[in-house]
């Protein structure tokens, strides 16, 4: 299977570049604010909508309400002290953030986590991808008016959080990994718990699909809504399930494998139309692929140490590194510049939600106000990561 190189990426994007807003409105035009306090914006996001009746003519996102200066904080903390901070960006996929950060620092120091640690990392990260997708499904369906999936997905996500809690004591902001490996060995019964979860959750995914996949209201609300072509998605730097639903078969776990991903057999689900419905299908398929990866990992997990040879004081040599992973939302990258001291000289986070949110304007033009909510949901943004 080709990892990338879907020839649709060669299509030419004819995105209209943002034109400066005219200072006046036509008589039938209207400007309204959605948010910053709005239940369907998944956090404090303000979208200024320019409308003609119900039709959206243009949008502007106002973000930064949750800006905490994570990158500035990083420059004033040691590498180890900054580790828990990354969990607070995409707080529904904290494990992924931690994996990206730890791997980036390890790469900068030229060390590698031992195989057992890599497997533990893969298992937890994929569990977290499941949890993130479940949360997305529940809230996205709720926004569109289907209430039941929320209860189903939260019920099942709970089982994942229980595993996290037993593993490291925290449910949400887990701080599961350390630079050089993992701090904790798996608890007695970890593998049993994970296997039980796999058999428990597989039929539940079918259950979600039964509720939605052929549901007429769901189809009406999602088919051909928020379409983005492959070429536009690439031009806008969109990654993750949103890019794949537009037909680009690209996943960093395959394209540039990290952790232990090269050892597992899994597929990259893609969509065709790049609409909200395809993104839904892609994420559902991804959940099943995650189960496959977890199953292989838990069955073949090697014995051995869980911590690599890392000094107590983390002091990477002078240099810089960019490392990125496939987070549930897309490409999560860390660009770290080291001056040889114990603190990063500069740490830049490349947040998938931030970049994906930029596509909102392209996706909602010409749609109705109610569709804006569907599109915000389908982008799967977390404002903690957008604003950092």
């Amino acid at each position, binding site marked *: 299977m080709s990892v990338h190189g879907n020839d649709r990426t060669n299509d030419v994007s004819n995105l209209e*570049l943002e034109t400066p807003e005219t200072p006046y409105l036509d008589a039938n035009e209207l400007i309204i604010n959605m948010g910053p306090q709005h239940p369907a914006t998944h956090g404090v996001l303000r979208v200024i909508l320019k409308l003609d009746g119900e039709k959206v003519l243009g949008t502007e996102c106002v973000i930064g309400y949750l800006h905490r200066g994570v990158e500035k904080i990083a420059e004033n903390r040691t590498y180890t002290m900054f580790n828990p901070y990354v969990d607070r960006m995409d707080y529904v996929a904290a494990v992924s953030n931690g994996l990206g950060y730890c791997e980036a620092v390890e790469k900068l120091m030229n060390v590698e986590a031992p195989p057992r640690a890599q497997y533990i990392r893969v298992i937890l990260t994929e569990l977290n991808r499941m949890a993130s997708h479940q949360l997305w499904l529940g809230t996205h369906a709720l926004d569109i008016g289907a209430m039941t999936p929320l209860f189903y997905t939260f019920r099942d996500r709970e089982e994942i959080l229980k595993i996290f809690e037993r593993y490291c004591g925290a449910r949400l902001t887990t701080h599961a990994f350390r630079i050089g490996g993992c701090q904790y060995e798996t608890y007695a019964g970890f593998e049993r718990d994970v296997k039980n979860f796999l058999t428990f959750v597989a039929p539940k995914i079918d259950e979600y699909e039964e509720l939605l996949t052929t549901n007429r209201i769901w189809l009406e609300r999602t088919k051909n809504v928020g379409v983005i072509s492959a070429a536009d998605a690439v031009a806008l730097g969109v990654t993750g399930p949103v890019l794949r639903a537009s037909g680009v078969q690209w996943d960093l776990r395959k394209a540039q494998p990290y952790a232990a991903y090269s050892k597992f057999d899994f597929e990259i689900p893609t969509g065709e139309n790049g609409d909200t419905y395809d993104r839904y299908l892609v994420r559902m398929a991804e959940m099943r692929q995650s189960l496959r990866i977890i199953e292989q990992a838990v069955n073949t997990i090697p014995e051995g140490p869980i911590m690599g040879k890392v000094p*107590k004081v983390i002091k990477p040599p002078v240099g810089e*590194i960019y490392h990125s992973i496939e987070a549930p939302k897309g490409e999560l990258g860390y660009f770290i510049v080291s001056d040889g*001291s114990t603190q990063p000289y500069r740490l830049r986070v490349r947040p998938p939600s931030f*970049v994906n949110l930029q596509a909102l304007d392209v996706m909602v033009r010409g749609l109705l106000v109610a569709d804006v909510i569907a599109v915000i949901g389908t982008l799967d943004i977390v404002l903690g990561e957008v604003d950092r």
Partner: protein
Amino acid sequence: MAEEVKSPAPPPPEGEKQPTAEKPVAAAPAAPAKPAAPAKPAGPVPLPWTSPLVEKYRDQYGSGLDAQTYLGQNYLTVDRSLIPDILRLLRDEEQFDYCVDITAVHYPKREKQFDVVWILYSFARNERVRVKTQIADGASIPSSVSIWATANWLEREVYDMFGIQFDGHPDLKRILLPDGWKGHPLRKDYGILQQDNEWVQINLGIESGQ
């Protein structure tokens, strides 16, 4: 062969050396000295990067272009005046069709204070490259929004955090901080507890946000 050309490459014109005069290093009290010594397994150094891509452009641009590789990651250090050309060529000729990130690094001790960094990726080659250039404080740089649409918000963030101007950007304004804010927080001379007191008092009606 063009190999000789880059034999003068060892000079590390890299910004990385600079920051030695970084911070008072309010570091952890006891530990540093002892474990630090074995921690350095003769640190890797940037090596010249050779590839057909580099050869092609070196002929064209000569000394304005320096190609290196560090820990398996390739980067081009480019003269500021060549930036628009190089970025466009990388997209149009070399298929670097995905602009992953644009960011900057501040080196206050240096004459040209800022490194601006583009991280690019090519789907067709499955390859990344970083493009870096140095600019002085107050200098501007051409916007790449017309090359990659994604540069819009990324450049706005660089402007917001560092105060670097991008010429030709369609809507260059603050993105994460509020519009009237003074100062650019990711500059090294901006303290971690610093804030725009005036803004806070007027807009939030409190003495301090701390």
